[in-house]
């Protein structure tokens, strides 16, 4: 067992699960999407991105690309939320925050798929 791989896999999966947890629920209902969950998703995604730095392989490169996409989308969601927070959030604003995060979820899913593909191809050898 490689400790680096454990940490890497942990953060990749955690990024995806946190993102999923935030996105799930009615897209326009602020009650169903907690800001702390978005915060955690952003932080974990950034850590996952940094963990992917400096990998020379093709797979590593795609990994980094997906992570960058996810981080950018989540940060965009956070910015939108910070901008509209002032006088209570409307349904429309909430849905744009959540849809940005949902986009990030897709990128995170790709990341997880890559992780699984990597693992499987490793075992075959």
């Amino acid at each position: 067992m490689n400790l680096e791989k454990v940490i890497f896999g942990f953060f990749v999966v955690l990024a995806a699960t946190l993102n999923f947890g935030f996105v799930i629920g009615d897209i326009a209902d602020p009650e169903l999407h907690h800001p702390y969950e978005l915060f955690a998703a952003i932080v974990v995604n950034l850590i996952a991105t940094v963990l992917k730095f400096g990998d020379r392989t093709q797979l590593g490169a795609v990994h980094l690309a997906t992570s960058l996409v996810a981080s950018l989308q989540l940060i965009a969601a956070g910015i939108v939320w910070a901008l509209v927070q002032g006088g209570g959030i409307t349904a429309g604003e909430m849905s744009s925050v959540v849809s940005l995060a949902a986009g990030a979820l897709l990128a995170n899913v790709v990341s997880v798929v890559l992780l699984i593909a990597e693992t499987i191809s490793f075992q075959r050898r």
Partner: protein
Amino acid sequence: MGNPLLVLWHWIFVPRPGEDEAVDEQGPWRIVPGSEIPRPGTVAPPTASATSGAVFLVLRRMRVPLILLLLVFSISVLGLTLIPGAQPDGGTEPMGFFEAFYFMTYTATTIGFGEIPYEFTTAQRMWVTFSIYIAVIGWAYAIGSLLAMLQDRSFRREIVAQRFARQVRRMPEPFLVVIGYGEAGARVAHALDRRGRRLVVLDRSQERIDALELAQLRADVPALAANPRVPGTLVAAGLTHPRCEGVLALTDDDEANLAVVQAAHLLRPGVPVIARAETPATAARMAAFGQPTVVDPFDAFGDRLRLILRTPALAQLFDWLVSPPGAPVPPRPDPPGQGRWVVVGHSRTVAEVSADLRVAGAEVVELDPAREAGPEDGAFVDLVAGAVGVVAASDRDTQNLSYVEAAQRAEPDVFVVARQESPGNAPLFAALHPDLLLVPAEVVAREVLERLANPALWDLLQAAKGQGDPWAADALAWLVARCGPGSPTVWQVRLDARSAPALVHRLAVEPVRLGALMASPFGRQDPLPLTALMLVRGEDRVLVPDEETPLAVGDELLMAGGPGAQRGWDATLGEDDALAYVLSGSSVAISWWGRRLLRTRT
């Protein structure tokens, strides 16, 4: 390469596809059918970019500091959003995420705008105190790691190498690759730079590359301290670049020069190569790789000594023609008459020089300083007495100085040739006033420059060797009379529709004499300060052709001219009205410029 950072990095630092596509197409392996030997040039050249590892290393090493920074930030922000803060209306509400992030950003980076939006409670202040400590540690660690990495030697070398490769890739004009910036390399590089040639320089030693940067050449010369024996380095220096017009292997290491010759021939067959070789064995091995031009300093010096002894005026003419434009006529060497020569030195040098002296008709006595008489020895003095010339050509400067001094003392009128190895000893040799100084690096540089200056000039020099000394003296006097006392610019022109359209039109109508073109297009009464050095028609070479010679389409002329002559000559050959004016002084125009102004372009 799909990593976006990597792509960006490559886009900035690594050669564009186009130039090394062959690599991508053929992959690292190439299957050679059967037992066929790969022909030169069919093998994919190594890429210059095989060493971007340092970049990845930096990215990898930055992982820990960056993650630490992220954690520090998120913990501080999270804490601030959880601790209730006092509000002016008496309520207790924690900070929002954005406000907390904003506060931590300016606090952790030591900007410190103060407590916003409202004054903090004690609990908030305790948390912020803790946050500041961990943030400062996090930042210090991250910045420290980054700086340590930027100072990493291998990383810096990597950056320098990539900048060099990028500069070479973007060379806008044809360039020569000079390998070895030692004494000979530096002389060649400076002379070529003065003539406006573009260069790329490689040398093993960083000190020499630093010296090149301080030398303030006219053009921007990309230079790199790297091992030229590695083919990847040569490729980075532009060996496979489409604008690379030649490779000069001038290191003082025969093996390295041979390696360069081999790489040049195998990776870029047909590229002109000039290589320095100090032993005939190396020269022979080089010859097997694409027949490069091999320069052997001792052989070249022997040839030169012979030239000076037999035809001093010709030697003078050569020196003048290959010196930079505007240089004064060098003094004519004054060789001694027939008689005995004493040659001091080690076997190899002595053999070359003696052979050439014997060809020149001299009687030669060889002397090996390791085994025979020293300079203070009576035997040496006896040998020198009555001799016409002494060649002190051992490979140690101190020894040569001793021999020169002893020879001059024994026989004041003797013709002394001294070999100087180290450039630092130049003043010592100058003080002894030897009649001829042999500096191997200078000999190499001269030979390389003669060959590079102009291919036709090299032909001319070879053809002129067949002429007698009186011819050379006449030619020199003629050149000075026509082109002025400064050494002329030498250029080559082919009388064809592209480089001499007006003359080609005219030749279709009437014959034109060479001399008729010599008048200035700016004022017909004045001749241009130029003359033809050589006329090449088919296989025939006419040296300093007569001015009555009729010209023909397809002729090639080697011209020599003073300042501004080439511009006038080009105008005469290229512009119909200028040619008409030069030939007949045609009455329509008051001046060439007047006609240019009045003429409507068709």
